[in-house]
């Protein structure tokens, strides 16, 4: 049972949580003042301490430094008792398991920092072996430069040990690395310890500054998690150190670990400033769903257009002009780095209207390859009567690649620039004679496309076979033939919120559902983790989930993943939108 730790915000593997001590502590935090070490059992046997609500008692332990042979770890692995007070247990990569503690202290952390491969493999292993709602403490390793990455990987607690030791050695730490204090002409910080000329600062000042810098960085990281923007920070900050960059890249290769923890939607914008953005779960997931779940329902020719800085695209000036030229005679698909391709129905769907990229007119080889792969996969699944490319010159290498690969020919309509008069006239005349599709078809296809994207291939037709639409884009509402509402489009995220009627239809359909079994209670407002009996593995934060128990059926939006719902003893598992008593 994790009684004294609760996760409040999640951002991928990073979390903001709370150590529920007599004086609560927000995590990720510095553990120095809130942990009490009951001592190592290597030199002597220890009594089980009485504990206190004021601090996390680290139970008597045998730490296994990095490099301890497995046989020795097995032979000396301590057995931890369950206690009634806030407790921490010392584990290693090999011995990590559920000991019913609130905090898991990783021994051997010294051997994995600075080694990206070992670090990533260890953290993933340990995090998967301990309960989701327990805090992971990496002792003795945090610096202002690495703490963002430690937390990004899944750490909840660190300490000031390394920052202080470095200070004693005259090493001045910042979020971009370390320098010898004596080499500094000025102190690049304005914390209290740095309110003096560089040449008068001594090692005590250096220690104080290092701790301040660590605290500052942790506060920054907590804020980033709350706003859902830690990854954007990491992509920039980690570049100051090779092992940190290698670490977040290697974590991207641990896709299952990150994907399980990455929400379906966020309010925050993605900063796409490097090729690393392409490896983000959100980007990969969108590309994967567009090329395996989505299906084009229009009969019109394909019109590929460039993305716009303004989102959603349809609100931009350039797309307004494209629209005026196309006049509902073509199916508009925007090409963009880092998203790939965005069919017009999904222009609201996260992250299609939630990113901002660096536009230079020069594409990197990685971007070209990624977008070409997505476009090719998209076109293999979706055939069109005609293929029109209304694109500026820098997009053409991508289209040409796809033409070669799939053996299809595009009609090109841009003279100089997509929005110049001649190009727009070309686009319009190229579509001459094509029939216009109607607004009703457009609205139906939009809701069905989002259903495909969100619930799985074919979901749009399964859920909305007798669709009637009310209200205006983007606030579309889906009703059945009898007028009962099934779902509403959430304009901010481009996803569907189901009603109970919609949820029941989902359950009755052949589409894979996301369900959780709850105890005998009637959810009001939210479902807490302890009320969950079981939950599907593939539930992700932000997913629509049906909660069913002996007393009620509810529909809501998940706050945590399915495995976390099952493994957690605290925290809100899901907000609940509608409940019906049985």
């Amino acid at each position: 049972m994790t009684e004294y730790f609760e996760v409040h915000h999640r951002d991928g593997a990073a979390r903001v949580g709370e150590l529920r001590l007599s004086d609560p502590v927000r995590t990720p935090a510095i553990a120095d003042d809130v942990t009490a070490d009951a001592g190592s059992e290597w030199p002597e046997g220890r009594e089980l301490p009485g504990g206190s609500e004021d601090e996390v008692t680290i139970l008597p332990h045998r730490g296994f430094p990095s490099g301890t042979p497995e046989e020795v770890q097995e032979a000396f692995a301590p057995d931890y008792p369950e206690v009634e007070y806030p407790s921490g247990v010392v584990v290693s990569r090999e011995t990590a398991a559920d000991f019913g503690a609130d905090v898991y202290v990783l021994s051997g952390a010294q051997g994995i920092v600075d080694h990206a491969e070992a670090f990533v493999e260890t953290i993933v292993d340990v995090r998967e072996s301990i309960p989701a709602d327990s805090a992971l403490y990496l002792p003795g390793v945090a610096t202002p430069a690495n703490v963002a990455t430690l937390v990004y990987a899944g750490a909840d607690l660190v300490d000031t040990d390394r920052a202080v030791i470095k200070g004693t050695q005259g090493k001045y730490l910042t979020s971009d690395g370390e320098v010898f204090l004596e080499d500094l002409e000025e102190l690049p910080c304005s914390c209290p310890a740095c309110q003096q000329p560089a040449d008068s600062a001594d090692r005590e000042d250096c220690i104080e500054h290092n701790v301040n810098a660590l605290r500052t960085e942790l506060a920054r990281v907590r804020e980033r998690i709350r706003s859902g923007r830690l990854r954007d920070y990491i992509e920039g900050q980690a570049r100051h150190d090779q092992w940190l960059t290698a670490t977040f890249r290697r974590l991207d290769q641990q896709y299952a670990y990150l994907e399980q923890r990455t929400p379906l939607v966020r309010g925050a914008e993605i900063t796409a400033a490097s090729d690393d953005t392409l490896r983000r779960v959100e980007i990969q997931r969108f590309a994967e769903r567009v090329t395996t779940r989505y299906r084009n329902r229009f009969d019109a020719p394909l019109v590929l257009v460039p993305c716009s800085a303004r989102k959603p695209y349809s609100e931009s000036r350039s797309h307004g002009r494209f629209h005026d030229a196309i006049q509902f005679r073509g199916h508009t698909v925007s090409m963009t780095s880092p998203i790939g391709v965005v069919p017009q129905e999904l222009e609201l769907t996260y992250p299609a209207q939630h990113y901002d990229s660096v536009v230079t007119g020069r594409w990197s080889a990685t971007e070209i390859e990624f977008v070409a792969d997505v476009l090719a996969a998209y076109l293999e699944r979706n055939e069109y009567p005609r293929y029109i490319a209304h694109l500026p010159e820098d997009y053409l290498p991508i289209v040409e690649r796809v033409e070669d690969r799939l053996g299809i020919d595009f009609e090109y309509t841009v003279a100089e620039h997509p929005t110049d008069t001649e190009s727009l006239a070309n686009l319009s005349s190229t579509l001459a004679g094509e029939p216009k599709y109607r607004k009703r078809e457009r609205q139906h296809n939009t809701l069905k496309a989002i259903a495909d994207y969100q619930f799985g291939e074919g979901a749009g037709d399964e859920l909305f076979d007798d669709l009637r639409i009310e209200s205006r884009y983007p606030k579309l509402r889906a009703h059945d033939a009898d007028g009962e509402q099934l779902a509403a489009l959430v304009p901010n995220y481009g996803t569907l919120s189901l009603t109970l009627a919609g949820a029941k239809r989902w359950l009755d359909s052949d589409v894979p559902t996301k369900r959780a079994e709850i105890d005998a209670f009637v959810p009001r407002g939210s479902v807490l983790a302890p009320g969950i009996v079981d939950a599907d593995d593939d539930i992700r934060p932000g997913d629509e989930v049906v909660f069913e128990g002996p007393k009620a059926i509810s529909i809501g939006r998940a706050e945590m993943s399915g495995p976390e719902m099952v493994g957690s003893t605290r925290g809100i598992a899901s907000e609940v939108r509608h409940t019906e008593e049985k």
Partner: protein
Amino acid sequence: MSKPSPEVYEQGKGMDAHNQVMREIRGRNDKSYDPTEPTRVWLDEDNTPDGVYQSLTIILNTGGCRWARAGGCTMCGYVAESVEGGTVAHDDLMTQVQACLDHEKENADEESGLIKIYTSGSFLDEREVPAETRRAIAETFSDRERIVVESLPDFVDREKIADFTDQDLATDVAVGLETATDRVRHDCVNKYFDFADFEDACAEARTADAEADGVDVGVKAYLLMKPPFLSESEAIEDMKSSIRRCAGVEGCHTVSMNPTNVQKYTEVEQLYFGDGYRPPWLWSVAEVLEATAEEDVIVVSDPVGHGSDRGAHNCGGCDDRVQKAIKDFNLRQDPSVFGQVSCACELTWETVVERETGYNLPLAR
């Protein structure tokens, strides 16, 4: 007293694991050694109960420790330096002794008053050094003043000691006690005898002393500072209490407290390679010597490989100066020698002592 042969040692999970690991690690070493050459020999100066002597130290190659064949101590690489096959014949052992005498003749102006013989095992174990050889060696050195022979406590026997006292040699048995804390000796060092066995060996030495007419017999305890798995502060405390407990045992007149160094083909080396082990700071050695200077026992220390990454070290800038102070202390037992050395890295060391724990070590390199 527990039995010497590993096969009848009390079996335990931790011991089995350490042994299994050490056997596997030692198996990686494919070197073998010439049974007619000593492992090592050197000249030095040593403090003894009757003053400072020039000493001739001999590491005799006897085929090594029997315990190490089962796996053995986590820090000990000396077995790797022993001969293939296991036993060394009497003639070969005497050839080794002669090589040591030649070394002394070549490098010293006069004969050493003190002879120290180590085997990385037990000189008094007759399976390692036959009685015939022991007596011949005693005879060889009969013109010297003192002799030190290394042995596990189990083999300390008044009659064997008499072989030396009969030659009028004051005799010290060097016992690798490592620590007075049984738990640390067992779990961290993987050495399987108890402090009580050491006390028994000291009592046996007292008897030998009483039986030898006018010739002193005593025990010199060898302690190991900072075996694996201990933090710096735990290691310091373990040594302070060990020295105090040794001082309280009659018959034990000298303690040689030696920092762990990282030897090849050992579990300690595996930890070291994994960034999980750092030898003790020289400041820690100084701290222990200073804190126990008042005890009624001679305390000396010989940090092997001081200043190197694999040996006891500080920051690299002050290692030689602190080592010199330790050597000075060895001869004079005067703690004020440590007041004369200082370095900025003491602040780092103090922080390590204060903050290093069983789960965050090593905090500094």
